[in-house]
């Protein structure tokens, strides 16, 4: 088992699956589901290897850095791969119901599977990349695949959303690429480990850092660079919204985190405070906007803006507990937000609209769906027992320990804002409405995947010690003295 090249397989399998779906469109659902299962199994295999032998460095084709392409898997990569695999499997199952029978014709379903599997390939490759240029390539691939998926819904809304997304995505990667060029020019390498040893503060490095951070923040949609996110995430088909919110924005955050920790460890405290402040602004702005929305999918999209803000609170806190808290927030948000967008998708599918004020007629006939939404909401607002609670606890603990209690205040108020909109929606399950209008039944797979993802977000609250232990492999956040 130990000498199987899992990192390569994890990247090649979804690629092969995507090609197969492209070649045999009639079998694409079956092929897609099989690929999804296969990727989950392979990530598990890689996980076993990493847990057994520690962080893995793997030179593709036997060529090491700086010539060849290196892959690197530590606890952080593994966790990102795992969350992608689990959410990816959920989204695949959901899509098999959604695209098969919805108003999406056979045509759209045919396009969905290959693109989605390419996107998965890009994600896996991104989380395994050991150099900043490969990160650029995978980021670009990810962006293009995501744009194609957004356009899949068809119609003017989706196309203009996709166009906007494309521009933002290209601009973000361009900034990032400029930074890569500067670093390569100065230090003659793109390998993260080599750069970590060579990079020293200099004007070129500051410029590179600035460019890369801005590019990545744009892609991660941190306030005030979030302007593109709500409309894009809201206009896409439900499974696509789910994977955009749960995975795609997290990929650029992951790159930022890697760079921050390894290439730019000297970044000064003022910059960290700035990121924290922007994060706090995102929490409040996203929360308020979510509360004001009249459409369910817009509401969920704005809540993503808020939740992404939490991730940046870890920068000023800068301790291992803080980073793990942010990572845990990322995990539980991925599961919870997937469930929420799936629930919204079910509601749209069933009632044909997602106007919040008229939800009662729909949600009372979809008890599983509204349960999924409510459970996901519990995690989002950080009530126990849920993944969101663990994350909130860790961040709050760090904030108080490091005597920066105001970040704790942001967490608390942000939680209250989320509670306000979650209960605003869930409250509609308890009105007394007669339901006169005929609706389309939602396939059971769609209701159950939504519920299972939400249950996962809750269960994350009970299995934290194991996942946190996983995160320590290869100590991506440094040793305890760094805190």
């Amino acid at each position, binding site marked *: 088992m130990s000498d199987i090249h899992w990192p390569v397989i994890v990247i090649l399998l979804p690629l092969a699956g995507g090609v197969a779906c492209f070649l045999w469109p009639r079998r694409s659902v079956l092929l897609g589901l099989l690929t999804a299962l296969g990727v989950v199994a392979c990530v598990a295999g890689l996980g076993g290897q990493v847990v057994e032998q520690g962080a893995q460095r793997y030179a593709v084709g036997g060529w090491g850095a700086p010539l060849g392409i290196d892959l690197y898997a530590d606890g952080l990569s593994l966790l990102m791969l795992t969350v992608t695999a689990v959410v990816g499997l959920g989204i695949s199952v959901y899509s098999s119901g959604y695209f098969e029978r919805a108003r999406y014709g056979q045509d759209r379903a045919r396009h969905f599977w290959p693109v989605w599997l390419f996107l998965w390939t890009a994600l896996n490759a991104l989380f395994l990349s050991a150099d900043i240029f490969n990160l650029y390539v995978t980021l670009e691939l990810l962006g293009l695949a995501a744009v194609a998926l957004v356009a899949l819904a068809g119609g003017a809304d989706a196309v203009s959303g996709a166009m906007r997304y494309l521009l933002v995505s290209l601009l973000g990667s361009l900034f990032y690429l400029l930074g890569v060029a500067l670093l390569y020019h100065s230090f003659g390498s793109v390998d993260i480990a080599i750069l970590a040893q060579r990079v020293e503060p200099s004007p070129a490095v500051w410029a590179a850092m600035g460019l890369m951070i801005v590019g990545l923040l744009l892609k991660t949609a941190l306030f005030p660079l979030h302007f593109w996110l709500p409309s894009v995430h809201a206009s896409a088909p439900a499974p696509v919204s789910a994977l955009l919110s749960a995975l795609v924005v997290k990929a650029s955050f992951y790159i930022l985190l890697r760079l921050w920790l390894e290439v730019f460890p000297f970044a000064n405290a003022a910059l960290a405070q700035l990121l924290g402040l922007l994060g706090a602004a995102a929490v409040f702005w996203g929360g308020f906007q979510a509360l004001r929305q009249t459409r369910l999918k817009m509401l969920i999209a704005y809540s993503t803006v808020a939740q992404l803000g939490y991730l940046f609170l870890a920068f000023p806190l800068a301790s291992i507990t803080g980073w793990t808290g942010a990572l845990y927030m990322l995990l539980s948000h991925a599961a919870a937000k997937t469930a929420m967008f799936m629930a919204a998708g079910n509601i749209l599918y069933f009632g044909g609209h997602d106007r919040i004020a008229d939800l009662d007629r729909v949600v009372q006939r979809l008890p599983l769906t509204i349960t999924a939404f409510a459970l996901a909401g519990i995690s989002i607002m950080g009530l126990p027992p849920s993944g969101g609670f*663990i994350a909130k606890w860790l961040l709050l603990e760090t904030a108080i320990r490091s005597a920066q209690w105001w970040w704790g205040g942001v967490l608390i108020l942000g939680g209250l804002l989320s509670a306000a909109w979650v209960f605003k929606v869930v409250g509609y399950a308890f009105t007394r409405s007669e339901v006169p209008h005929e609706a389309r039944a939602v396939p059971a797979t769609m209701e159950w995947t939504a519920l299972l993802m939400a249950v996962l977000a809750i269960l994350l609250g009970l299995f*934290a*010690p194991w996942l946190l232990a996983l995160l320590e492999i290869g100590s991506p956040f440094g040793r305890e003295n760094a805190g």
Partner: protein
Amino acid sequence: MNWGATLPLLVLASSLLPGLVIFFLPEERVATRTTLNLAGAVLKLVLVGVMIWGVFHGSHYETRLPLLPGLDLLLRADSLSMLFVVLSSILWLVTTVYAVGYLEGSPNRSRFFGFFSLCVTATVGVALAGNLVTFLLFYELLTLATYPLIVHRGTDEARRAGRTYLIYTVAGGTLLLLGTVWLYTLTGTLDFTARGFLSGLDEAHHAALIIIFVLLIAGLGVKAALIPLHGWLPQAMVAPAPVSALLHAVAVVKAGAFGIVRVVYDVYGVQFSASLGVTLPLAIVAAATIIYGSMRALFQDDLKRRLAFSTVSQVAYIVLGIAIAGPVAAVGGLVHLVHQGVMKITLFFCAGNLAETLGIHKVSEMNGVGRRMPWTMVAFTVAVFGMMGAPPLAGFISKWHLGLGALDVGQGWVIFILAGSSLLNAAYFLPILYAAWFKPPPDSWPAERSFGRRETAWALLAPPLVTAFLTLALGLLASAPFGLLQWARFITQLEYAP
């Protein structure tokens, strides 16, 4: 199988699993649902019985599951938690019978009983919690499980009440979370320990400890309905009668009061709290709540609202007993935890019977109702006399110890509070009794349903009779061996032993 570690989990599972199954039952499967409910309730009672037997024979029941590095989910049966567990499992069984009768034929019953079971699971979790974070977990779960019960009827009024409830309790939960995390950063442990685990802390932290105390008590005070945090409780009485009964007697309000006992006894420790100077302000808040609640109750014509304000007042007795910081008063507070539950649940059952059978919701409609529903009103009368503290009923035992305990530690002013409250109790309860027994009944009741020769359905009548009987028994047998007083004394000994 390690029996000591699994029993607390089984006690939780006995209501959690039936609850989860019930959610998925189709509406018309009445028999299955009722069987599941009752089986769960009886099983829980049996398991709790086994647990008590074990605790008396020196066994330790403790379940630890890792929650975070260095922080466990801890369930533990100690003498204080058993007090609350026994109360809630007995009253749950009674309330389940009542609820089955009460909701017969109404919509959404699977949803109702599902959340009902979750609610009890959360309450028992609160009781068994062995550290503050576990307590917090179940405390929040209780908030979430109760909300659907309060808004169950789905009317605008119910939804408004539900919203108020959420605003109060979610905000309260947040304060509790903040206090808990802060405390954890200071101590590194949150496990409940008799006489507290904070007294060893450096003096420099004492200011922080006082703020944390305020945060924790404010968070718990919301559910315990201490003024000025009581606003949600009178509104929440729009819920169906069995929910009100559970809310006021066992679940929500009691969880808050129980939490205050835990914080004062097993986190801070009474002596240490007193040395921090936080017990006297707490006693004053409790005293103010007692008087304020009674005053407001006087002016309510809606029967359930009157009972709700009476709860505000009565639950504060428990807090008062703890905050007086003397062993005898503490016994009074602890036994009142049980007594108030048994008496108040009786009153709400009776109010529900009046509403269901005759359509009576207001005190002014109760003239002569004693003749139409004698058994219900007998139960009501017993509970009312208990509430006022008439010997030999349960409430008398509580008040006696509270008063005696206050004199013991030189806090004579409490006597006046108790006397004033008893007078007010009489003022808002006795007119009801007078009207019910001595005024002539009207020609017709607002909305009468006929149950043949019986005054109302069996499932509605039996529960209040049982709890009224308990009120009497708890008073008469208070000093019996293994009685409640002995138990409460045992708990306070742990706290006050030199």
